[in-house]
Protein backbone atom coordinates (compact mmCIF):
# COMPACT_ATOMS: atom_id res chain seq x y z
CA UNK A 1 0.00 0.00 0.00
CA UNK A 2 1.23 3.53 -0.63
CA UNK A 3 2.39 5.25 2.58
CA UNK A 4 0.80 8.28 4.18
CA UNK A 5 2.80 10.68 2.06
CA UNK A 6 1.36 9.18 -1.10
CA UNK A 7 -2.13 9.77 0.19
CA UNK A 8 -1.58 13.47 0.62
CA UNK A 9 -1.97 14.07 -3.00
CA UNK A 10 -1.24 17.06 -5.13
CA UNK A 11 -4.42 16.33 -7.10
CA UNK A 12 -6.43 19.43 -7.81
CA UNK A 13 -3.46 21.77 -7.97
CA UNK A 14 -3.05 23.04 -11.48
CA UNK A 15 -1.02 25.68 -13.21
CA UNK A 16 -2.55 29.17 -13.54
CA UNK A 17 -2.83 28.70 -17.33
CA UNK A 18 -4.64 25.42 -16.87
CA UNK A 19 -6.99 26.90 -14.31
CA UNK A 20 -8.04 29.55 -16.85
CA UNK A 21 -8.86 27.02 -19.58
CA UNK A 22 -12.47 25.82 -19.65
CA UNK A 23 -13.13 22.40 -18.16
CA UNK A 24 -13.68 19.75 -20.81
CA UNK A 25 -13.73 16.51 -18.86
CA UNK A 26 -13.59 15.40 -15.25
CA UNK A 27 -12.92 12.14 -13.50
CA UNK A 28 -14.77 12.09 -10.20
CA UNK A 29 -13.71 9.44 -7.69
CA UNK A 30 -13.09 7.17 -10.67
CA UNK A 31 -12.33 3.56 -9.71
CA UNK A 32 -11.85 0.30 -11.51
CA UNK A 33 -11.79 -2.77 -9.29
CA UNK A 34 -12.08 -6.09 -11.13
CA UNK A 35 -12.40 -8.89 -8.55
CA UNK A 36 -12.39 -6.28 -5.82
CA UNK A 37 -8.79 -5.20 -6.44
CA UNK A 38 -8.55 -1.45 -7.07
CA UNK A 39 -6.45 -1.00 -10.23
CA UNK A 40 -7.66 2.58 -10.55
CA UNK A 41 -8.48 4.00 -7.16
CA UNK A 42 -10.78 7.01 -6.61
CA UNK A 43 -9.05 9.23 -9.15
CA UNK A 44 -10.14 12.87 -9.37
CA UNK A 45 -8.80 14.60 -12.46
CA UNK A 46 -9.65 17.70 -14.45
CA UNK A 47 -8.98 17.83 -18.19
CA UNK A 48 -9.12 21.35 -19.57
CA UNK A 49 -9.80 22.49 -23.13
CA UNK A 50 -6.74 22.91 -25.33
CA UNK A 51 -4.30 21.61 -22.71
CA UNK A 52 -1.85 18.74 -23.03
CA UNK A 53 -1.95 16.44 -20.04
CA UNK A 54 0.77 13.80 -19.76
CA UNK A 55 0.00 10.77 -17.59
CA UNK A 56 3.08 9.17 -16.09
CA UNK A 57 3.82 6.36 -13.68
CA UNK A 58 5.45 2.97 -13.45
CA UNK A 59 4.21 -0.11 -15.28
CA UNK A 60 1.00 -1.33 -13.69
CA UNK A 61 0.23 2.06 -12.17
CA UNK A 62 -3.13 2.09 -13.98
CA UNK A 63 -2.34 4.63 -16.71
CA UNK A 64 -3.79 2.70 -19.65
CA UNK A 65 -6.81 1.68 -17.59
CA UNK A 66 -7.39 5.31 -16.64
CA UNK A 67 -7.35 6.35 -20.31
CA UNK A 68 -9.79 3.57 -21.21
CA UNK A 69 -12.10 4.60 -18.38
CA UNK A 70 -11.96 8.25 -19.44
CA UNK A 71 -12.68 7.31 -23.07
CA UNK A 72 -15.58 5.07 -22.08
CA UNK A 73 -13.99 1.84 -23.26
CA UNK A 74 -14.32 0.36 -19.78
CA UNK A 75 -17.21 0.79 -17.35
CA UNK A 76 -15.96 2.20 -14.04
CA UNK A 77 -16.51 0.26 -10.82
CA UNK A 78 -17.10 3.52 -9.01
CA UNK A 79 -17.18 7.24 -9.61
CA UNK A 80 -17.96 8.81 -12.94
CA UNK A 81 -16.56 10.52 -16.00
CA UNK A 82 -18.12 13.88 -16.74
CA UNK A 83 -17.97 15.46 -20.20
CA UNK A 84 -18.82 19.14 -20.22
CA UNK A 85 -20.93 18.81 -17.10
CA UNK A 86 -22.81 15.71 -18.23
CA UNK A 87 -22.10 11.99 -17.80
CA UNK A 88 -20.00 10.54 -20.61
CA UNK A 89 -22.21 9.07 -23.34
CA UNK A 90 -21.87 7.84 -26.92
CA UNK A 91 -22.23 11.33 -28.33
CA UNK A 92 -19.40 12.54 -26.11
CA UNK A 93 -17.25 9.57 -27.16
CA UNK A 94 -17.67 10.67 -30.76
CA UNK A 95 -15.97 13.93 -29.86
CA UNK A 96 -12.95 11.96 -28.71
CA UNK A 97 -10.44 9.66 -30.37
CA UNK A 98 -7.83 7.28 -29.07
CA UNK A 99 -4.56 5.93 -30.42
CA UNK A 100 -3.38 2.72 -28.82
CA UNK A 101 0.13 1.62 -27.98
CA UNK A 102 -0.19 -1.13 -30.57
CA UNK A 103 -2.05 0.44 -33.47
CA UNK A 104 -5.02 -1.56 -34.67
CA UNK A 105 -4.98 -1.72 -38.45
CA UNK A 106 -7.94 -3.06 -40.37
CA UNK A 107 -7.06 -5.70 -42.95
CA UNK A 108 -7.36 -3.16 -45.70
CA UNK A 109 -5.30 -0.60 -47.53
CA UNK A 110 -4.02 2.57 -45.86
CA UNK A 111 -6.63 4.68 -47.61
CA UNK A 112 -9.43 2.21 -46.77
CA UNK A 113 -8.49 2.45 -43.07
CA UNK A 114 -8.97 6.21 -43.23
CA UNK A 115 -12.17 5.94 -45.27
CA UNK A 116 -13.67 3.45 -42.82
CA UNK A 117 -13.10 5.67 -39.79
CA UNK A 118 -14.79 8.58 -41.52
CA UNK A 119 -17.62 6.50 -42.99
CA UNK A 120 -18.68 5.13 -39.60
CA UNK A 121 -18.85 8.70 -38.33
CA UNK A 122 -21.20 9.56 -41.13
CA UNK A 123 -18.72 11.61 -43.16
CA UNK A 124 -18.99 10.92 -46.88
CA UNK A 125 -18.60 12.37 -50.33
CA UNK A 126 -16.32 15.32 -51.00
CA UNK A 127 -15.68 16.00 -47.33
CA UNK A 128 -14.43 12.44 -46.80
CA UNK A 129 -12.13 12.64 -49.81
CA UNK A 130 -10.76 15.95 -48.58
CA UNK A 131 -10.07 14.63 -45.09
CA UNK A 132 -8.48 11.44 -46.41
CA UNK A 133 -6.12 13.43 -48.64
CA UNK A 134 -5.27 15.76 -45.78
CA UNK A 135 -4.61 12.83 -43.42
CA UNK A 136 -2.37 11.08 -45.96
CA UNK A 137 -0.42 14.27 -46.49
CA UNK A 138 -0.06 14.98 -42.75
CA UNK A 139 1.10 11.44 -42.04
CA UNK A 140 3.34 11.48 -45.12
CA UNK A 141 1.73 8.25 -46.31
CA UNK A 142 0.54 9.43 -49.72
CA UNK A 143 2.88 7.05 -51.57
CA UNK A 144 1.62 4.13 -49.52
CA UNK A 145 -2.09 4.93 -49.80
CA UNK A 146 -2.94 1.75 -51.71
CA UNK A 147 -0.66 -0.53 -49.68
CA UNK A 148 -2.11 -2.93 -47.13
CA UNK A 149 -1.93 -1.15 -43.77
CA UNK A 150 -0.60 -4.19 -41.95
CA UNK A 151 2.59 -4.37 -44.00
CA UNK A 152 3.63 -0.85 -42.96
CA UNK A 153 6.46 -0.43 -40.48
CA UNK A 154 5.65 0.20 -36.82
CA UNK A 155 6.26 3.93 -37.21
CA UNK A 156 4.15 4.15 -40.36
CA UNK A 157 1.32 2.23 -38.72
CA UNK A 158 1.39 4.55 -35.71
CA UNK A 159 1.38 7.61 -38.03
CA UNK A 160 -1.61 6.13 -39.84
CA UNK A 161 -3.39 5.43 -36.54
CA UNK A 162 -2.80 9.02 -35.43
CA UNK A 163 -3.82 10.45 -38.80
CA UNK A 164 -6.96 8.27 -38.71
CA UNK A 165 -7.83 9.61 -35.27
CA UNK A 166 -7.18 13.21 -36.29
CA UNK A 167 -9.22 12.85 -39.49
CA UNK A 168 -12.25 12.42 -37.24
CA UNK A 169 -11.54 15.94 -35.86
CA UNK A 170 -11.84 15.05 -32.17
CA UNK A 171 -11.93 17.68 -29.45
CA UNK A 172 -10.02 15.34 -27.14
CA UNK A 173 -7.31 12.92 -28.22
CA UNK A 174 -6.12 10.08 -25.98
CA UNK A 175 -2.68 8.69 -26.77
CA UNK A 176 -1.52 5.53 -25.02
CA UNK A 177 2.28 5.50 -25.33
CA UNK A 178 2.15 6.37 -29.03
CA UNK A 179 5.92 6.26 -29.46
CA UNK A 180 6.71 3.15 -27.43
CA UNK A 181 9.24 1.01 -29.33
CA UNK A 182 9.68 3.55 -32.13
CA UNK A 183 13.03 4.85 -33.32
CA UNK A 184 13.93 8.55 -32.93
CA UNK A 185 12.88 9.47 -36.48
CA UNK A 186 9.48 7.83 -36.10
CA UNK A 187 9.10 9.37 -32.64
CA UNK A 188 9.80 12.80 -34.09
CA UNK A 189 7.21 12.26 -36.82
CA UNK A 190 4.61 11.29 -34.23
CA UNK A 191 5.51 14.22 -31.98
CA UNK A 192 5.14 16.57 -34.94
CA UNK A 193 1.67 15.21 -35.61
CA UNK A 194 0.76 15.66 -31.94
CA UNK A 195 2.08 19.22 -32.02
CA UNK A 196 0.01 19.92 -35.15
CA UNK A 197 -3.08 18.52 -33.45
CA UNK A 198 -2.47 20.69 -30.41
CA UNK A 199 -1.97 23.75 -32.59
CA UNK A 200 -5.45 23.11 -33.99
CA UNK A 201 -6.83 23.32 -30.46
CA UNK A 202 -7.27 19.62 -29.80
CA UNK A 203 -6.98 18.68 -26.13
CA UNK A 204 -4.49 15.90 -25.57
CA UNK A 205 -4.16 13.31 -22.83
CA UNK A 206 -1.09 11.21 -23.38
CA UNK A 207 0.75 8.44 -21.58
CA UNK A 208 4.53 8.32 -21.82
CA UNK A 209 7.47 6.94 -19.89
CA UNK A 210 9.82 9.38 -21.62
CA UNK A 211 10.63 12.39 -19.43
CA UNK A 212 12.00 14.31 -22.41
CA UNK A 213 8.81 13.73 -24.32
CA UNK A 214 6.75 14.76 -21.31
CA UNK A 215 8.74 17.97 -21.15
CA UNK A 216 8.37 18.60 -24.92
CA UNK A 217 4.71 17.78 -25.22
CA UNK A 218 3.16 18.23 -21.81
CA UNK A 219 1.60 21.30 -20.25
CA UNK A 220 0.58 19.36 -17.15
CA UNK A 221 1.52 16.04 -15.66
CA UNK A 222 -0.61 13.58 -13.72
CA UNK A 223 1.41 10.96 -11.88
CA UNK A 224 -0.16 7.63 -10.97
CA UNK A 225 1.10 5.14 -8.44
CA UNK A 226 -0.67 1.91 -7.52
CA UNK A 227 -3.84 3.07 -9.24
CA UNK A 228 -3.95 6.34 -7.28
CA UNK A 229 -3.28 9.79 -8.59
CA UNK A 230 -0.42 10.89 -6.39
CA UNK A 231 0.52 14.18 -8.02
CA UNK A 232 -0.66 16.63 -10.64
CA UNK A 233 0.79 19.95 -11.68
CA UNK A 234 2.56 21.90 -14.38
CA UNK A 235 4.94 19.65 -16.32
CA UNK A 236 8.07 21.68 -15.56
CA UNK A 237 7.37 21.75 -11.83
CA UNK A 238 6.49 18.03 -11.52
CA UNK A 239 9.51 16.99 -13.57
CA UNK A 240 11.92 19.24 -11.65
CA UNK A 241 10.59 19.18 -8.11
CA UNK A 242 8.06 16.41 -7.63
CA UNK A 243 6.29 16.52 -4.30
CA UNK A 244 5.26 12.91 -3.96
CA UNK A 245 7.73 10.23 -3.01
CA UNK A 246 6.56 7.94 -5.81
CA UNK A 247 7.00 10.56 -8.53
CA UNK A 248 10.37 11.64 -7.11
CA UNK A 249 11.66 8.06 -6.95
CA UNK A 250 10.41 7.25 -10.45
CA UNK A 251 11.73 10.42 -12.03
CA UNK A 252 15.10 9.93 -10.35
CA UNK A 253 15.22 6.43 -11.78
CA UNK A 254 15.35 4.78 -8.38
CA UNK A 255 13.92 1.33 -7.82
CA UNK A 256 11.23 1.23 -5.17
CA UNK A 257 8.40 -0.84 -3.86
CA UNK A 258 4.98 0.46 -2.85
CA UNK A 259 6.02 1.40 0.69
CA UNK A 260 8.42 4.23 -0.02
CA UNK A 261 8.94 5.10 3.62
CA UNK A 262 10.55 1.75 4.38
CA UNK A 263 12.25 0.95 1.10
CA UNK A 264 15.83 2.09 0.83
CA UNK A 265 16.77 3.50 -2.54
CA UNK A 266 19.52 1.51 -4.17
CA UNK A 267 22.50 3.68 -4.90
CA UNK A 268 23.53 3.46 -8.54
Amino acid sequence: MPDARLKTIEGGRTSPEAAQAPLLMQARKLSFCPNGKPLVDTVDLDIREGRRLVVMGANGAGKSLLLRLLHGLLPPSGGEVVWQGKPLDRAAMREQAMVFQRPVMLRRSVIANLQFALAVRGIGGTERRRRVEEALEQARLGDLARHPARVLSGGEQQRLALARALACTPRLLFLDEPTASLDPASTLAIENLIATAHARGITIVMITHDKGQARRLGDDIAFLHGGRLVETGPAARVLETPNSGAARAWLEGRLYLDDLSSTPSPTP
Partner: protein
Amino acid sequence: MQDFGTTLAEAIGLILLADGDLIEIITLSLRVTLSAVIIACAIGLPFGALVGAFRFPGRAVVTVFLNALMGLPPVVVGLVVYLMLSAAGPLGPLRLLYTPTAMIIAQTILVTPIVAALTRQVIEDLQTEYSEQFASLGVGPLDRIAALLWDARYSLLTVALAGFGRAVAEVGAVIIVGGNINHVTRVMTTTIALETSKGNLELALALGVVLLAIAVIVNAAVMALRASAVRSAYA
Protein backbone atom coordinates in the same frame (compact mmCIF):
# COMPACT_ATOMS: atom_id res chain seq x y z
CA MET B 1 -14.21 -59.00 -61.71
CA GLN B 2 -11.68 -56.80 -63.53
CA ASP B 3 -8.39 -55.81 -61.97
CA PHE B 4 -7.90 -52.30 -60.66
CA GLY B 5 -5.66 -51.19 -63.55
CA THR B 6 -8.17 -52.15 -66.23
CA THR B 7 -11.03 -50.55 -64.30
CA LEU B 8 -9.06 -47.35 -63.83
CA ALA B 9 -8.18 -47.23 -67.54
CA GLU B 10 -11.83 -47.61 -68.50
CA ALA B 11 -12.85 -44.99 -65.93
CA ILE B 12 -10.38 -42.50 -67.35
CA GLY B 13 -11.70 -43.36 -70.82
CA LEU B 14 -15.19 -42.43 -69.70
CA ILE B 15 -13.93 -39.10 -68.36
CA LEU B 16 -11.92 -38.29 -71.49
CA LEU B 17 -14.81 -39.18 -73.77
CA ALA B 18 -17.04 -36.88 -71.69
CA ASP B 19 -19.63 -39.62 -71.34
CA GLY B 20 -23.13 -38.12 -71.41
CA ASP B 21 -24.38 -39.84 -68.25
CA LEU B 22 -21.20 -38.88 -66.44
CA ILE B 23 -21.53 -35.21 -67.37
CA GLU B 24 -25.21 -35.16 -66.36
CA ILE B 25 -24.42 -36.64 -62.96
CA ILE B 26 -21.49 -34.27 -62.35
CA THR B 27 -23.56 -31.26 -63.39
CA LEU B 28 -26.43 -32.18 -61.07
CA SER B 29 -23.99 -32.83 -58.22
CA LEU B 30 -22.38 -29.43 -58.61
CA ARG B 31 -25.75 -27.69 -58.97
CA VAL B 32 -27.10 -29.27 -55.79
CA THR B 33 -23.90 -28.77 -53.81
CA LEU B 34 -23.24 -25.18 -54.88
CA SER B 35 -26.87 -24.22 -54.28
CA ALA B 36 -26.74 -25.71 -50.79
CA VAL B 37 -23.42 -24.02 -49.99
CA ILE B 38 -24.62 -20.63 -51.25
CA ILE B 39 -27.82 -20.84 -49.18
CA ALA B 40 -25.86 -22.11 -46.16
CA CYS B 41 -23.41 -19.19 -46.48
CA ALA B 42 -26.28 -16.70 -46.84
CA ILE B 43 -27.68 -17.97 -43.53
CA GLY B 44 -24.56 -19.14 -41.69
CA LEU B 45 -22.19 -16.26 -42.35
CA PRO B 46 -24.35 -13.47 -40.86
CA PHE B 47 -25.66 -15.71 -38.08
CA GLY B 48 -22.17 -16.87 -37.10
CA ALA B 49 -20.94 -13.27 -37.31
CA LEU B 50 -23.73 -12.08 -35.01
CA VAL B 51 -22.91 -14.74 -32.42
CA GLY B 52 -19.19 -14.04 -32.74
CA ALA B 53 -19.40 -10.26 -32.57
CA PHE B 54 -21.98 -9.59 -29.88
CA ARG B 55 -22.50 -10.54 -26.25
CA PHE B 56 -26.06 -11.52 -25.33
CA PRO B 57 -27.74 -13.77 -22.78
CA GLY B 58 -27.61 -17.40 -23.87
CA ARG B 59 -24.69 -16.86 -26.21
CA ALA B 60 -22.74 -19.75 -24.70
CA VAL B 61 -25.71 -22.08 -25.20
CA VAL B 62 -26.06 -20.99 -28.84
CA THR B 63 -22.33 -21.58 -29.36
CA VAL B 64 -22.46 -25.08 -27.85
CA PHE B 65 -25.56 -25.86 -29.92
CA LEU B 66 -23.91 -24.64 -33.13
CA ASN B 67 -20.77 -26.63 -32.48
CA ALA B 68 -22.82 -29.74 -31.70
CA LEU B 69 -24.80 -29.36 -34.94
CA MET B 70 -21.56 -29.54 -36.92
CA GLY B 71 -21.66 -33.28 -36.29
CA LEU B 72 -25.25 -33.80 -37.41
CA PRO B 73 -25.65 -37.38 -38.73
CA PRO B 74 -26.61 -37.07 -42.42
CA VAL B 75 -29.00 -40.03 -42.34
CA VAL B 76 -30.91 -38.42 -39.46
CA VAL B 77 -31.15 -35.17 -41.41
CA GLY B 78 -32.27 -37.16 -44.45
CA LEU B 79 -34.92 -38.93 -42.41
CA VAL B 80 -36.27 -35.71 -40.88
CA VAL B 81 -36.40 -33.95 -44.26
CA TYR B 82 -38.06 -37.05 -45.73
CA LEU B 83 -40.73 -36.97 -43.03
CA MET B 84 -41.32 -33.26 -43.58
CA LEU B 85 -41.58 -33.58 -47.37
CA SER B 86 -43.42 -36.89 -47.60
CA ALA B 87 -47.09 -36.85 -48.59
CA ALA B 88 -48.18 -37.08 -44.95
CA GLY B 89 -45.67 -34.47 -43.78
CA PRO B 90 -46.34 -30.76 -43.21
CA LEU B 91 -44.55 -29.82 -46.43
CA GLY B 92 -46.00 -32.70 -48.44
CA PRO B 93 -48.24 -30.48 -50.61
CA LEU B 94 -45.11 -28.84 -52.04
CA ARG B 95 -44.29 -32.16 -53.75
CA LEU B 96 -40.56 -31.73 -53.28
CA LEU B 97 -39.64 -35.27 -52.25
CA TYR B 98 -37.34 -37.03 -54.72
CA THR B 99 -36.39 -33.78 -56.43
CA PRO B 100 -33.05 -31.93 -56.52
CA THR B 101 -34.70 -29.26 -54.34
CA ALA B 102 -35.19 -31.80 -51.55
CA MET B 103 -31.51 -32.70 -51.84
CA ILE B 104 -30.55 -29.02 -51.63
CA ILE B 105 -32.69 -28.63 -48.49
CA ALA B 106 -31.05 -31.62 -46.82
CA GLN B 107 -27.53 -30.47 -47.72
CA THR B 108 -28.29 -26.92 -46.59
CA ILE B 109 -29.37 -28.23 -43.18
CA LEU B 110 -26.11 -30.17 -42.93
CA VAL B 111 -23.83 -27.37 -44.11
CA THR B 112 -25.36 -24.32 -42.41
CA PRO B 113 -24.20 -25.26 -38.86
CA ILE B 114 -20.67 -25.86 -40.17
CA VAL B 115 -20.56 -22.45 -41.84
CA ALA B 116 -22.14 -20.71 -38.83
CA ALA B 117 -19.93 -22.37 -36.20
CA LEU B 118 -16.67 -21.77 -38.07
CA THR B 119 -17.71 -18.20 -38.92
CA ARG B 120 -18.44 -17.53 -35.24
CA GLN B 121 -14.91 -18.56 -34.31
CA VAL B 122 -13.27 -16.54 -37.10
CA ILE B 123 -15.32 -13.42 -36.33
CA GLU B 124 -14.84 -13.73 -32.58
CA ASP B 125 -11.06 -13.82 -33.01
CA LEU B 126 -11.12 -10.77 -35.27
CA GLN B 127 -13.55 -8.95 -33.00
CA THR B 128 -11.14 -9.43 -30.09
CA GLU B 129 -8.48 -7.69 -32.15
CA TYR B 130 -10.74 -4.87 -33.34
CA SER B 131 -13.05 -4.34 -30.37
CA GLU B 132 -11.34 -1.37 -28.69
CA GLN B 133 -10.68 0.39 -31.98
CA PHE B 134 -14.30 -0.10 -33.05
CA ALA B 135 -15.55 1.16 -29.68
CA SER B 136 -13.28 4.18 -29.92
CA LEU B 137 -14.48 4.98 -33.44
CA GLY B 138 -18.10 4.50 -32.40
CA VAL B 139 -18.74 1.77 -34.96
CA GLY B 140 -22.42 0.76 -34.92
CA PRO B 141 -23.65 -2.87 -34.93
CA LEU B 142 -24.36 -3.11 -38.66
CA ASP B 143 -21.08 -1.46 -39.66
CA ARG B 144 -19.28 -3.75 -37.23
CA ILE B 145 -20.75 -6.93 -38.71
CA ALA B 146 -20.09 -5.75 -42.27
CA ALA B 147 -16.50 -4.75 -41.45
CA LEU B 148 -15.75 -8.00 -39.63
CA LEU B 149 -17.17 -10.11 -42.46
CA TRP B 150 -15.24 -8.12 -45.06
CA ASP B 151 -11.94 -8.17 -43.20
CA ALA B 152 -12.29 -11.90 -42.50
CA ARG B 153 -13.23 -12.67 -46.09
CA TYR B 154 -10.21 -14.89 -46.84
CA SER B 155 -10.70 -16.95 -43.70
CA LEU B 156 -14.39 -17.20 -44.52
CA LEU B 157 -13.56 -18.56 -47.97
CA THR B 158 -11.96 -21.48 -46.17
CA VAL B 159 -15.13 -21.83 -44.12
CA ALA B 160 -17.21 -21.98 -47.30
CA LEU B 161 -14.78 -24.58 -48.64
CA ALA B 162 -15.28 -26.73 -45.55
CA GLY B 163 -19.03 -26.51 -46.22
CA PHE B 164 -18.50 -27.44 -49.86
CA GLY B 165 -16.39 -30.42 -48.85
CA ARG B 166 -19.09 -31.69 -46.53
CA ALA B 167 -21.86 -31.20 -49.12
CA VAL B 168 -20.14 -32.63 -52.18
CA ALA B 169 -19.13 -35.82 -50.35
CA GLU B 170 -22.52 -36.32 -48.71
CA VAL B 171 -24.46 -39.47 -49.54
CA GLY B 172 -26.73 -40.53 -46.65
CA ALA B 173 -29.19 -37.63 -46.65
CA VAL B 174 -29.41 -37.11 -50.42
CA ILE B 175 -30.08 -40.75 -51.13
CA ILE B 176 -33.01 -40.72 -48.68
CA VAL B 177 -34.65 -37.51 -49.91
CA GLY B 178 -33.52 -37.76 -53.55
CA GLY B 179 -34.14 -41.42 -54.10
CA ASN B 180 -31.21 -41.75 -56.52
CA ILE B 181 -33.55 -41.62 -59.53
CA ASN B 182 -31.74 -41.92 -62.86
CA HIS B 183 -31.63 -38.62 -64.80
CA VAL B 184 -33.49 -36.87 -61.99
CA THR B 185 -31.72 -37.04 -58.63
CA ARG B 186 -28.65 -39.15 -59.29
CA VAL B 187 -25.51 -37.40 -58.07
CA MET B 188 -21.89 -38.50 -57.90
CA THR B 189 -21.88 -40.02 -54.43
CA THR B 190 -25.17 -41.88 -54.78
CA THR B 191 -24.14 -43.16 -58.20
CA ILE B 192 -20.84 -44.44 -56.85
CA ALA B 193 -22.71 -46.34 -54.13
CA LEU B 194 -25.25 -47.76 -56.61
CA GLU B 195 -22.85 -48.67 -59.43
CA THR B 196 -20.41 -50.29 -57.02
CA SER B 197 -23.20 -52.51 -55.67
CA LYS B 198 -24.10 -53.39 -59.28
CA GLY B 199 -20.51 -54.20 -60.16
CA ASN B 200 -20.28 -51.35 -62.70
CA LEU B 201 -16.97 -50.21 -61.35
CA GLU B 202 -15.80 -48.11 -64.33
CA LEU B 203 -18.51 -45.48 -63.88
CA ALA B 204 -18.13 -45.56 -60.08
CA LEU B 205 -14.39 -45.08 -60.31
CA ALA B 206 -14.71 -42.37 -62.96
CA LEU B 207 -17.01 -40.43 -60.66
CA GLY B 208 -14.64 -41.03 -57.76
CA VAL B 209 -11.78 -39.56 -59.78
CA VAL B 210 -13.88 -36.53 -60.72
CA LEU B 211 -14.95 -36.05 -57.08
CA LEU B 212 -11.33 -36.11 -55.96
CA ALA B 213 -10.30 -33.76 -58.76
CA ILE B 214 -13.01 -31.27 -57.79
CA ALA B 215 -11.89 -31.37 -54.15
CA VAL B 216 -8.24 -30.85 -55.14
CA ILE B 217 -9.01 -28.00 -57.57
CA VAL B 218 -11.24 -26.13 -55.11
CA ASN B 219 -8.71 -26.55 -52.30
CA ALA B 220 -5.83 -25.42 -54.49
CA ALA B 221 -7.75 -22.34 -55.65
CA VAL B 222 -8.64 -21.32 -52.12
CA MET B 223 -5.11 -21.96 -50.88
CA ALA B 224 -3.66 -19.82 -53.67
CA LEU B 225 -6.10 -17.04 -52.90
CA ARG B 226 -5.35 -17.23 -49.19
CA ALA B 227 -1.58 -17.29 -49.76
CA SER B 228 -1.91 -14.17 -51.86
CA ALA B 229 -3.98 -12.53 -49.11
CA VAL B 230 -1.42 -13.47 -46.45
CA ARG B 231 1.40 -12.04 -48.56
CA SER B 232 -0.44 -8.74 -48.76
CA ALA B 233 -1.43 -8.92 -45.06
CA TYR B 234 -5.14 -8.96 -45.73
CA ALA B 235 -5.61 -12.30 -43.95
